[in-house]
């Protein structure tokens, strides 16, 4: 028997668990993704992030009368790539429609979008949660343009508009209402993010708004096959906010139903600080967008040849790659999963492995030192810029015994921060292990003399003490000795 609340993935208050009705949460997502093109969807303005206000605008993206939009071909290609990766059907003949509404972030008074013939439809993604694998349906994917940015000006008690973002290409990915809890929602979003990042179609950052998820949620009595009235939740900027908003909205709707009141179909804005939401639009803003085909844009016809080119150019996606790393390189499922979390890391690993011919060691350096420094320096994995050849030569040097492991770690920090050429750096700083047998012998004698107790313990069979003695020698040598060799020499000397 299922415990109360288990299906929602959320704990209900004890009051509701005691013999009252049980509810199931039904969730569908509308995900907006900003595409990583150089220019906007209908004009040659740059999409570069962080430019000074209105420096990336023209008559087209500010909706001047008579300006004519021309479709950016790359947008169609990226939308197709995402659609194919999400197992979608492609509308080989698609076109753009106008969605009419008045708001200052939208200078044309309509947003160019796709309603009647979206580019992709009827796809699915498979997600995996604690409960196992599950397919989430994708209703459609359509192309559209982003709006400008509004900032409230306290002094003038007015709003300021920056149209740099107006006309930046978006795809909207609309799922079927197939998710039942926050865990599934997050698994779906992660899956989508990985696919889109691997395709290079977007960086998908929730915090920066290049990926935005609106949650459509309703509740129904367990076992019911009809849907309840749904609300749409906006302003969700992190996975945590999404999880909290789902829990909050589920509770709110159940409360209404238990009190015999109706859930109203509306858009609500989540306030993550207050952990509550409120209705966003007033009734005169009734959703009547009066869509109609945009007469300024000609239809898009997608030939089999074009589609085949896009299919052929699809990169290996995350799961396929993680599986290959396990099969071809013998990595554990866990390591393969961590390394492929970022496409850039996966590529660094693979190139390093190929160059040093030791995938295990390359994986250890990525999983260990690279991720340690990523965390310590607080950089994004995508921004790590060292040359894989540099890490590979460091690995080879350690293998040859010409530098110690400890020295290699120190040099790697330089490789990570400044991408220095490790061999030159080792030479310049005299970091190579000392081959001078006389010097090493002297140091060994000195350490043996200074650690009588440890030496005795080792001789009476305590093998572990050798590590301590090696450490002492390495310290004397300032790390410039081969620890393996030091161990051998020590063993030899102590046996005498």
């Amino acid at each position: 028997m299922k415990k109360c609340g288990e299906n929602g993935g959320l704990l209900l208050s004890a009051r509701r668990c005691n013999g009252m009705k049980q509810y199931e949460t039904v969730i569908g997502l509308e995900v907006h993704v900003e595409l990583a093109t150089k220019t906007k969807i209908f004009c040659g303005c740059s999409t570069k992030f962080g430019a000074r206000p209105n420096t990336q605008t023209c008559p087209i993206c500010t909706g001047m009368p008579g300006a004519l939009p021309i479709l950016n071909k790359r947008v169609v290609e990226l939308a197709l790539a995402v659609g194919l990766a999400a197992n979608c059907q492609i509308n080989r003949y698609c076109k753009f429609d106008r969605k009419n509404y008045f708001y200052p972030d939208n200078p044309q008074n309509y947003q160019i979008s796709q309603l009647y013939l979206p580019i992709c439809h009827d796809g699915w993604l498979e997600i995996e949660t604690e409960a196992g694998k599950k397919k989430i349906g994708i209703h459609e994917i359509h192309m559209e343009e982003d709006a400008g940015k509004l900032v409230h000006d306290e002094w003038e008690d007015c709003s300021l508009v920056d149209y740099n973002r107006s006309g930046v290409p978006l795809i909207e990915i609309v799922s079927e209402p197939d998710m039942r809890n926050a865990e599934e929602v997050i698994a779906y979003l992660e899956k989508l993010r990985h696919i889109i990042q691997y395709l290079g179609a977007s960086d998908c950052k929730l915090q920066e708004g290049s990926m935005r998820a609106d949650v459509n949620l309703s509740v129904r009595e367990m076992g019911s096959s009809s849907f309840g009235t749904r609300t749409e939740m906006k302003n969700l900027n992190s996975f945590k906010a999404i999880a909290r908003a789902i829990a909050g909205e589920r509770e709110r709707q159940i409360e209404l139903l238990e009190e015999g009141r109706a859930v109203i179909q509306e858009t609500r804005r989540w306030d993550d600080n207050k952990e509550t939401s409120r209705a966003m639009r007033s009734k005169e803003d009734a959703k009547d967008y009066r869509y109609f085909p945009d007469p300024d844009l000609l239809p898009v016809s997608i030939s089999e040849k074009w589609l085949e080119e896009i299919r052929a150019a699809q990169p290996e996606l995350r799961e396929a790659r993680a599986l290959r790393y396990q099969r071809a390189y013998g990595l554990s499922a866990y390591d393969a999963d961590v390394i492929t979390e970022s496409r850039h890391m996966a590529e660094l690993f693979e190139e390093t492995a190929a160059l040093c011919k030791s995938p295990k060691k390359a994986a250890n350096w990525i999983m260990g030192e690279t991720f340690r420094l990523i965390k310590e320096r607080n950089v994004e994995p995508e921004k790590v810029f060292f040359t894989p050849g540099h890490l590979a030569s460091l690995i080879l040097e350690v293998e040859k015994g010409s530098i110690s492991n400890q020295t290699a770690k120190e040099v790697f920090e330089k490789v990570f921060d400044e991408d220095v050429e490790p061999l030159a750096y080792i030479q310049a700083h005299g970091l190579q292990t000392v081959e001078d047998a006389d010097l090493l012998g002297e140091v060994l004698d000195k350490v043996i003399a200074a650690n009588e107790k440890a030496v005795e313990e080792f001789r009476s069979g305590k093998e572990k003490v050798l590590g301590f003695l090696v450490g002492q020698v390495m310290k004397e040598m300032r790390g410039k000795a081969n620890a393996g060799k030091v161990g051998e020499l020590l063993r030899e000397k102590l046996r005498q």
Partner: protein
Amino acid sequence: MYVVKIDDKTMESVEILAQLRLSDNEREKAREDMQKMLDYVEKLNELDTKGVEPMSHIFPVNNVFREDIVTNGDSREAMLANAPRQKEYQYLVPKTVE
């Protein structure tokens, strides 16, 4: 023979959507105009369009694209010259509620 009749309720909702405030005279005149337009289009219903694909463009042209290359520079001075009010290179508009 009116199939769609424009009544006061329709006028009210159209006014809200178009963000227009009409006087009684203007409203009556607009209502008559809109009715005339609908009646005119109604004529199309006399044709049998079974099996005819809905058409949104009269030109037999598809796939007019541009390449993804930046062609526009910073022209914000010129762009903002059209703004009734501006501040710090941004368009100043009535307060939006959110």
